[in-house]
């Protein structure tokens, strides 16, 4: 089987061609999205979900910690953004910072509890905590607005000296999200390849050995969870802006499971870019298949099941193998594929 290190190369070039390609594609999206029969809002949603999925994969794919309740931190971010706008000030930066900070605190506290655990019990506790957040979001009506959620969250303008950019248009908001997405991708790329990121990957492969190499594994697990919750919170804040509301549904275990599915289908277990493919495939499937048949989720689920059975390395893994078949068969043999 292929693994993360096989595909993610030991990159030495500082300006990464893949990141550049991503930048070009991201910034030109509003131009070509309508041309391929899509609409602007889906670009917005995909971009936000990629931030979420990429941050999630730092934990899931790189550190090998299987969280099944990550929607909670997206939700916390969304609520924090909305509450900030409603109760403190209508301010973009403040709202986004509040979203990240709230998710960081929630993630950190949960990680303190989780990080002594491994494997199944870890996954289980993430579900339990996810449910606690979801349940609280529904029941704390005075704070969260209950099942309806927070409504009428404004989209505060970008305030620059002498310039104010209104974000009520989806394309303008998309460009803001695109900038943030690109920054997030760059940050995560460096993070995953930095010494810190290498230690996380070492923990995935062999927690005990990492400990005997002198690393305080617990701290690294707490950090990974907190960082990944922060990205979820950031995505949540942006999502609250896109939807102009925040509601408990994104925190349900169903939704947390969907992000796991996206990351796996895309190939997050074997490649940095896996979650990107996964999110795009999911949304395209939802819109194209969803247009044809009501039961698109059935087909998506079936595809997922078959993938887990025969191609758990996901789309990224398959692309890699196809590439290998045409380019360097010797390298492929070396990888044991």
């Amino acid at each position, binding site marked *: 089987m292929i693994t993360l290190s096989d595909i993610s190369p030991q990159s*030495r070039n500082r300006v990464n061609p893949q990141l550049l390609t991503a930048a070009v594609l991201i910034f030109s999206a509003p131009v070509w999205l309508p041309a391929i029969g899509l609409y602007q809002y889906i670009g917005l949603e995909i971009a936000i979900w990629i931030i979420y999925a990429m941050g999630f994969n730092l934990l899931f794919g790189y550190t090998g910690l299987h969280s099944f309740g990550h929607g909670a931190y997206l939700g916390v971010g969304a609520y924090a953004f909305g509450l900030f706008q409603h109760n403190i000030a209508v301010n973009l930066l403040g709202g986004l910072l509040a979203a990240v900070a709230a998710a960081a605190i929630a993630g950190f506290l949960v990680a303190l509890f989780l990080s002594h655990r491994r494997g199944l019990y870890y996954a289980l506790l993430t579900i339990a905590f996810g449910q606690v957040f979801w349940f609280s979001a529904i029941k704390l009506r005075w704070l969260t607005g209950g099942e309806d959620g927070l409504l009428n969250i404004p989209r505060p303008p970008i305030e620059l000296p002498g310039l104010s950019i209104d974000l009520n248009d989806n394309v303008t908001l998309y460009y803001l999200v695109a900038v943030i997405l690109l920054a997030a991708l760059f940050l995560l790329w460096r993070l995953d390849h*930095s010494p*810190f990121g290498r230690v996380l990957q070492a923990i995935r492969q062999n927690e005990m050995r990492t400990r005997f190499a*002198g*690393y305080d594994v617990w701290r690294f697990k707490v950090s990974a969870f907190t960082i990944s919750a922060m990205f979820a919170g950031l995505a949540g804040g942006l999502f609250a802006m896109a939807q102009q509301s925040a509601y408990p549904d994104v925190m349900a275990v169903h939704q947390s499971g969907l992000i796991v599915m996206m990351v796996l289908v895309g190939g997050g277990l074997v490649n940095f870019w896996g979650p990107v493919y996964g999110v795009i495939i999911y949304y395209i499937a939802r819109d194209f298949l969803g247009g044809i048949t009501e039961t698109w989720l059935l087909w998506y689920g079936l595809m997922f099941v078959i993938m887990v059975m025969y191609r758990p390395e996901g789309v990224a893994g398959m692309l890699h193998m196809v590439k290998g078949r045409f380019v360097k068969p010797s390298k492929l043999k070396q*990888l*044991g594929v």
Partner: protein
Amino acid sequence: MAVFEATGIHKRFGSSVVLEKIDLQFETGQISGIMGPNGAGKTTCFNVLTGRYKPDRGRIRFEDADITGLSPQQIAHRGISRSFQIMNLFDDSAVIENIMIALPQFYGDRKNIFRSAFDNEKLVGGAMAVLEQVGLSPKAWEPSKSLSYGDRRALEIGVALAANPRILFLDEPTQGLGANATLKLSNLINELRERYTIVIIEHDMNFLFDLADKISVIHWGQVIAEGSPFELRTNKWVQRSALGEVA
């Protein structure tokens, strides 16, 4: 005075006592061997000495400091490094990454979240130097899961060496190796003896008799004999126990 000293180590799992009362001393610059029949408690002893298990009674001292009950990572920071009997590599990673992560410089850089580890010439150079020592530098960029069994052993020792330890514990290094690979390993350890204090657990007695300065024999959870390989060959206790046929 011994650089590493364990006194009165007692360890039980539930109701079964694995280590009754173990006393061991290891001297600076020497190769010390621990041997004994299967099930004698060698590996448990090793795990207690290197911090994987806490002893129920007894003290462990290293360089005049009490290290009893410290966590594995704290013990690693004191300069104690170990290899594993069941090979415990980072299988997904390239050979060089396995070494890199164990380097003290890498540890110092562990909170760096921004600069790519492979951009750092010091890290790459440091890892290559260790690979040189264990004879794996030509295979540095290969995935570690593609290595031969003998090379994996060497890498296992390399990972332990990378931490620049003051004392090196090797757990059954010849396990599963053929005659050729064992000879190679023996040469490797002989080269290392000038720079490191080494403790080896081993059931292959010829291997230990060739290498060690001092050997302790563990049986029934106790040290039943101790001395130079020469002394042990003539020791009645050892001859009478299961090990006798070698002497």
